[in-house]
């Protein structure tokens, strides 16, 4: 996909959200994530939701222990954010979006 854009902070982000069934935490995480992506990453992210109850073998690949876990594969380094993503600040720090935040005025 598109690599880094000219301006720092405007990078393409690949996200994977690992959940385990339709637990409250998982649903909360998904909702929160969708909100964040919509507000901060419009147009420059891909999101895959992986339900480990359906596909348990995928947990090994990204070394998933905690549920829910949001994995940012790109850009490197890999970051894992665990929890229902209710702490927005933390999520943004985790996704390294703070600069983007200050950059754009969204």
């Amino acid at each position, binding site marked *: 996909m598109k690599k880094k854009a000219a301006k720092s902070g405007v990078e393409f982000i690949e996200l994977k959200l690992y959940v385990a069934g339709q637990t409250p935490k998982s649903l909360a995480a998904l909702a929160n994530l969708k909100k964040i992506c919509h507000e901060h990453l419009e147009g420059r992210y891909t999101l895959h939701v992986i339900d480990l109850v359906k596909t348990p073998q995928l947990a090994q690949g990204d070394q998933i222990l*905690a549920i829910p876990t949001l994995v940012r594969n790109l850009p490197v380094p890999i970051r894992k954010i665990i929890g229902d993503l209710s702490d927005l600040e933390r999520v943004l720090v985790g996704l390294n979006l703070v600069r983007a935040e200050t950059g754009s005025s969204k």
Partner: protein
Amino acid sequence: MAMSKTRRKEDSRVPPQLEKARTGIPGFDEITRGGVPKGRPTIICGGPGCGKTMFAVEFLVRGATQFGEPGVLMTFEETAAEMTKNVASLGFDLKDLSARKKLMMDYVRIEPSEIQETGSYDLEGLFIRLQYAVDSIGAKRVVLDTLEAVFSGFSNQGLLRAEIRRLFRWLKDRGLTTVVTAERGEGALTRYGLEEYVSDCVIFLDHRVNEQVSTRRMRVIKYRGSSHGADEYPFLIDDQGFSVLPSTSMGLDHAVSSQRISSGVKELDDMLEGKGYFRGSSVMVSGTAGSGKSSLAAHFANQTCIDGKRCLHVAFEESPAQTLRNMRSIGIDLAPHVKKGLLRMEAWRPTQSGLEMHLLRIHKLVEQFNPQAVIVDPITNLVTGNTHEVHAMLMRLLDFLKTKQITAFFTALTEGGAAMERTEVQVSSLIDTWMLLRDVELNGERNRCLYVLKSRGMANSNQVREFVMTRNGIRLLPVYLGSGTVLTGSARLSQEAREKADETARLQEAKEKSKTLEIKRKVLEAKVAALRAEFADEEDRLAQSAKRDEQKERSLARDIAEMASLRGSKAPGKGQGA
């Protein structure tokens, strides 16, 4: 009804003896009377490098290969490849087992720097991975090495503990026999207090260094629902994996044999009722340096092999090659026995490892080789300073050998001069047959004597014998007691010569005497003959004169008759007047 049923079921699940899963680790199953609790978690804790992971992996490998129970290895600190390499030295091929679906390895990497906690979470991912692994090979055993790693990755301690508790319940519900490794803590058993959650069975591994020699020990701290050996047991890890040394039955209830086996020296057998040692008994020969103890041991080894039985020879002083060479000089060739596989010679330095290691090594050799006789030459080398420990160790060794009805032959070095009947390790009370090799100095020579100090269960000779090593083996010669002292060596030879001379002289004298007698008899006989002849002569003459007299009488009578007839009268009688 359902409740009483489950209660009954629970009762049957915690009977006097819990159901156990055998580990297959030699010695461990004996200590725990069957292995680890089946379907429950067990903790192995200990300091770094004490063998926890090795134990856990061996538990899985043997479970898969020996007991048909595939296993899952969840490793938090080493990758699958690293783990495979680490245990390859123990002879375990994890790669092969994985390929055959007997083992599943899952490396769980926890990198704290990668993780950002935002909001509430749980460790369901771990459960999912475990479930997946267990399902994919139908595992019955699980190893978590080491679960404490989660404490470094996640900061929410309360959550972690709740999840760990959930995990163990999860494992129990599925009846998975689990082994968890944990690092030893300061003051507590484990650093993170895992023993709170795993309270069915706790095993502690210790790795101590005592006077530059390292010993590994294991202890079952807790085993809920089961009796177990409560002592510290030494163990070692070698190229065959773990071996634990269980204390042998220290009860004195061994079976005994009345069979006798030869010592290899005929005169010695003669001193022992003509038959030799009891099979399965303990024999010791003690003596000063160079007195021939090892040679006596070699004779016994030789005899055992000649009889077609296996013999294990453990030496702490000489290498096997040296022993073979030395024994050849007295006519004992052990090399063919070694080649045939009847004699196994092992030698190592006693300072190489701790006492328990020696015991364990001998144990293993005996289990592997299954000999009928074991020789340890010498046992006094094991004294490292703590004679009590050595005594205890030898007692266990003897116990072990007696239980297996293996004849034990020990040699012991004694300090010259000190009371010969006291060995340094004071093990003599454990010995059934004890022989002493003593030097006797006389006339500028030192000669050896052997005598049987004691021999339980048989009438042994109380005589001293001279112990000589000839080119054709050991000989025991009766000693001479000239004028009340024991004479050996050249003194005996001179005495022998003297006695021989005396005897010859006596024989000579006797011969002479009989000769004289002979002559006398001849003379006497001659005399008798002469007398007889004389007598015969007399007899003859007398007979003749008698005859003549008779003739005269007859002729006189005839004359008278004639004269009478001439006179013409009838002569009435004889000689009556004319």
